Structure formats: structure tokens, C-alpha cells
């Protein structure tokens, strides 16, 4: 399988006044199409920054990032936005649904942004995703009328509705109880299995991390060099049926 993402010696330094705070100190990473990677590490090790840099929400200070063959790291804001729109889906710990819109509205706005307000996307895929995430009866509800688990499922649906090359999930179960965490994780797994959705997921939960094909550990802005590949995952057979 070809690489869908490649990060080469990525560094990110934040400046707080005159002080430089390195968040990423040279991260290199390759991701194959359809892979499910989980990233673990202590708070402040740079996991979220890595996700933001990979998703083009911010530029790295140094290094190169290539997503689906396009270099995003040195691109201007407008180009990064375009690459993000076409290739990236985000899921956040706090769901980040637009509170004024219904679940359907949140999906619709993602489609509008993806299509630049023009044309209709693949309706069958939308129905498939809604079915898969068990949201068929919840589409008219506002986020405030949904449980945390339901909100996160809507957020996942919104993130994958436009078939992004990569789904970036930043602690998607961080705000959920164990029951809902399990549902959300199994749905991510199902998306990866059924639609070969490439996923990078940050988590603090070792059980959640174990659901991925590969586990990456980070510490002090670097990847700890003990990359586990697919053979590490004890549930491999369940994933690739």
C-alpha cells in the first residue's frame, strides 16, 4: 500500500514572548493508506501539536509534511486550507459541533465547505455513514439534545462524510464514559475496516490504543523509537476480516 502521509523531521516551536517553547523536536512518520495509528504519551509531549501540524491547522517551524502527495508544510494558508478541506477530517475530544445547527446541519455544513457550496456529494455514502454510526434517528437533534456519545458520533460522521484521506482524532473518548468510549472506538474501527479509512488517534487509554494497527509513543516532542507494527496488535484478526 502507498503512503498517504509522510512527516520528515517536523519541528514546531512556539514563542511565548521572548521564550521559545519547542513542542515538536523532529518527528518523522510514515502512514500507509488504510492504516489505523494510535499515538500515546504524557500530557504536553506534543501529541495534539503533531495532529494540528499534520492536519494543516498550523505550519511546522521546520520539516516537511506530505499528505496524499501534496506538500502541506510550506504551503500558504489558503493552500493548506484547501488540502485540509480535501484530505483531512478532524474529531476532537470536546466534539466541537456547531451548537446552532442540528446533527444534519453539522453534516451539511461540512459538505458545503467541502464542495465550496456547489454540487451534491455522494448521497449513498452519507446514508452508509449515518447507518454505521447509528445516527439515522438523531439527525434533526441539536447538539444540546444529544448525549456525549451521540455528539461524538455526529462529529465522527461529519469528519468522514467527505471521505477524507485521513481522519485525525484527538482523544475522541476523552470526555466519554466507558460504555460510550467503547461504542465510539468500535465505530472508528468499523470505519477503518469497512471504508479503509486511514486514522490517526491520540489517546491516553491503552485499551483504546490497542484497537489500532500501530501504536506510536511520544515523549518530549519526539517519537519514542519502539514503533509497533500491525503484528503487535492482538486484535489484528478482528480488524482485517
Amino acid at each position, binding site marked *: 500500500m502507498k503512503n498517504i502521509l509522510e512527516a520528515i523531521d517536523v519541528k514546531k516551536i512556539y514563542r511565548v514572548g521572548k521564550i521559545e517553547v519547542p513542542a515538536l523536536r523532529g518527528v518523522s512518520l510514515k502512514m500507509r493508506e488504510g492504516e489505523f495509528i494510535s499515538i500515546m504519551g504524557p500530557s504536553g509531549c506534543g501529541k495534539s501539536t503533531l495532529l*494540528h501540524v499534520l*492536519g494543516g*491547522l*498550523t505550519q511546522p517551524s521546520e520539516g516537511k509534511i506530505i499528505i496524499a502527495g501534496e506538500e502541506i508544510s510550506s504551503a500558504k*494558508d*489558503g493552500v493548506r*486550507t*484547501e488540502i*485540509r*478541506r*480535501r484530505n*483531512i477530517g*478532524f474529531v*476532537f475530544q470536546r466534539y*466541537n*459541533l*456547531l*451548537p*446552532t*445547527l442540528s446533527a444534519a*446541519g453539522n453534516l*451539511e*455544513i*461540512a459538505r*458545503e*465547505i*467541502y464542495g*465550496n*457550496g456547489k454540487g451534491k456529494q455522494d448521497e449513498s455514502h452519507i446514508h452508509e455513514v449515518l447507518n454505521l454510526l447509528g445516527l439515522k434517528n438523531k439527525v434533526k437533534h441539536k447538539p444540546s439534545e444529544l448525549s456525549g456519545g451521540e455528539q461524538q458520533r455526529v462529529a465522527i460522521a*461529519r469528519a468522514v462524510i467527505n471521505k477524507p484521506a485521513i481522519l485525525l482524532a484527538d482523544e475522541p473518548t476523552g470526555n466519554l464514559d466507558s460504555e460510550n468510549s467503547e461504542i465510539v472506538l468500535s465505530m472508528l474501527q468499523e470505519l477503518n475496516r469497512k471504508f479503509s479509512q486511514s486514522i490517526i488517534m491520540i489517546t491516553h487509554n491503552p485499551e483504546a490504543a490497542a484497537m489500532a494497527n500501530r501504536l506510536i509513543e511520544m515523549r518530549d516532542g519526539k517519537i519514542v523509537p519502539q514503533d509497533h507494527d500491525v503484528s503487535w496488535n492482538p486484535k489484528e484478526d478482528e480488524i482485517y476480516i
Partner: protein
Amino acid sequence: MAYSLVFSNILFRPMRTLATILAIALEVVLILLVVGLTRGMVNENARRLQGIGADIVTQPPGTSFFLATNTSAMVEKIADVLKTVEGVDAVAPVAVQLNTQGDLGLIYGINLESFNRITNGFNFISGRPFEKPYEIIIDDIQATSKKLKVGDEIKMLNHAFRVSGIVEHGKGSRVFLPLKTIQELTGTPGKVSLMYIKCASPDQIPQVTEKLKQKLPGYTVLPMAEFVSQVSSASTNLAALRYFLNTVIFISTIVGFFAIFLAMYTAIAERTRDIGILKSLGASKRFVLSVFMKEAFLLSGLGLLLGIAFSLLTQMILRQVLPNMQVELDADWMLKAALIAFLSAGLGGIYPALRAAGKDAIDALAYE
């Protein structure tokens, strides 16, 4: 594009939305009613002048077509001289006085006989012409708006008058007094403000006008059509009126600008996180800008509709309650009010929208 988001956003804070819409409506109402009232009064005055039926009007030197500003400075006896000019059929000297007691309006001091020759007489709805010095004739609009009937007493020029007759409106003024009485009360015996002249035939108007100009050098001698046209265009030609209208329009625009600016500025502060979400979904700066500008224009559009509706309602109510207050709302000024409302929305919305579009996605997502 993103209309559902725009609509849901404006419904999310109904009170703020309502307050903004009302402020825009106020802007539109201010423009439409002030302009409409000015134009209504001016045009109605012009129509009443036309209704007199005179062919030529003569005023003393240095006077204005804005009759309320004039004093009686023309010798009444000039009328006798003008009657001798070839082609002149009748001359009606009129003393015009601005009434400030009760309401603002022109009072005509007339000599019934000469005025009737010009106007072909009043159509009396009730009562009779004045016969005594302190009797007064009013038109039906004045009677309705002041709830007056024949025999009632009204105060004008610091004197009590009894209504002797109510006539159909449309002949110069709404209130008519005997010429001698008004001359006495204003301390200008034998003086008038202007003279209306009727020609023996309409074809003779240009020649008679020329002859009168020769007879009365320095005096204003105008064919009535030209005089009426000057009065009609007072709202655009009269500098003071123009400044007044422009000031009202400017203040209204400022009201609209601040209403939209504050509403959008608050909305953007409140929805910082939403902006981050849109950006994480791949929304461009242009998309974010367009969402907030559409919101500003939608608020403005709703305010405009409410403002027009409120102005039309006010016009309707005024017609019933105060028929002497004429408000003219035309499509031309509605379009101008719309342009002004959208201009203030554009100006008020652009800075907050640009701020929203320029927000950093990560900072916006981290906003609490």
C-alpha cells in the same frame, strides 16, 4: 452557501437579533418618514397652489416661493393697476401668515370676491362664507384633523375665530380669514404677500407675464406652473431642507452601522470556537467572511422590511388620525433606504467579519 448556518445563528440569540432588526428598522423609518413627511407636505402644498386656478403669481422683491417665510410687503392697491393690464381677467391679493398656534400651517387672508374670481369659488360642505371680521373658513381636512364643525371657536393669531364654513380642500390654504382682519392683526394695513392673477385666456400667459414684469420691475412674476414646480422641488432645491434631510439620512446610517457593528462584533466574540470548527472543516477565510457578512445583510434585510412595513403603517394611521400630515412614501425612496440600510450593514459587518476570517484556527478552537 451556508444559509442554514446563517439562519440558525440569527435565531440562536433572538433578543439580540430582534434588537438589531429594530435598530435597522428605526434607521429605515427615520429616513422614509422624515423624507416622506417633507415631500408630502411640500407636494401637498404644491397641489393646493395648483388648485387655486391662477395663471400667474406676483410677489414683492426679495421674497421666496417658500411662502411661510414671507411678510406682507406688497401694496394691496397694486391689484388695481394690474387689473388694467391687457389680458388680465382677475387679480386676487392674498396676505399669507404662518400660524404657530396649535399647529403649523399657512393662513390665507383673502378678499372673498376677488379670490372667488380666480378659484371659481369654494365648494361649501357646510356653513357659509365669512361675513364678520372674526369668522373663518376651513377646509374639510383641517376640520377632520382638528375635529371642528361650523360654529366652533378656534384660536389663531392670538384671537378667537368662529368657523363660518367648511369647504372642500385644495385651494391654496386650509384656513381663510378676511383680508382686512389679517392685515389688522399683523399690523400691515393695506399690504399683502402676493397676488394671484387669472388671464383672460391661457394662451396669453407668456405675454401677460412679460407685461407684468415691465409694470413691476424687481418683483417676482412667474407663471403658476413654474411657481408650483419650484415649490414641488423645494425638498431637493432648497439648501436648508436638503441639509436637514441629509443630516437625518447620515444619522440614520450611523444608527444602522453601529447596530450591525455591535451585533456582529458580539456574535464573533461569542462564536470564536465555531470559527475554529469551520476552519478545522476546511472553511476558507472567504467562506467565514461570507457567513458573517450574509448574517449582517440578512439582519439588515429583515430590518428594512420591518422599517418599510412600519412606515406604511404610520402613513396609514396618519391619514386617519391627522389628515393634514401628508406622508409620501414612494418606491424611489424605499430603494434609497434599502441601499442605505445595506450600506450601513456592509460597513458595520465588514470589520468584525474580517476579524473572524483572520482568526487562527487553533486559538479559536481553544477559546473558552
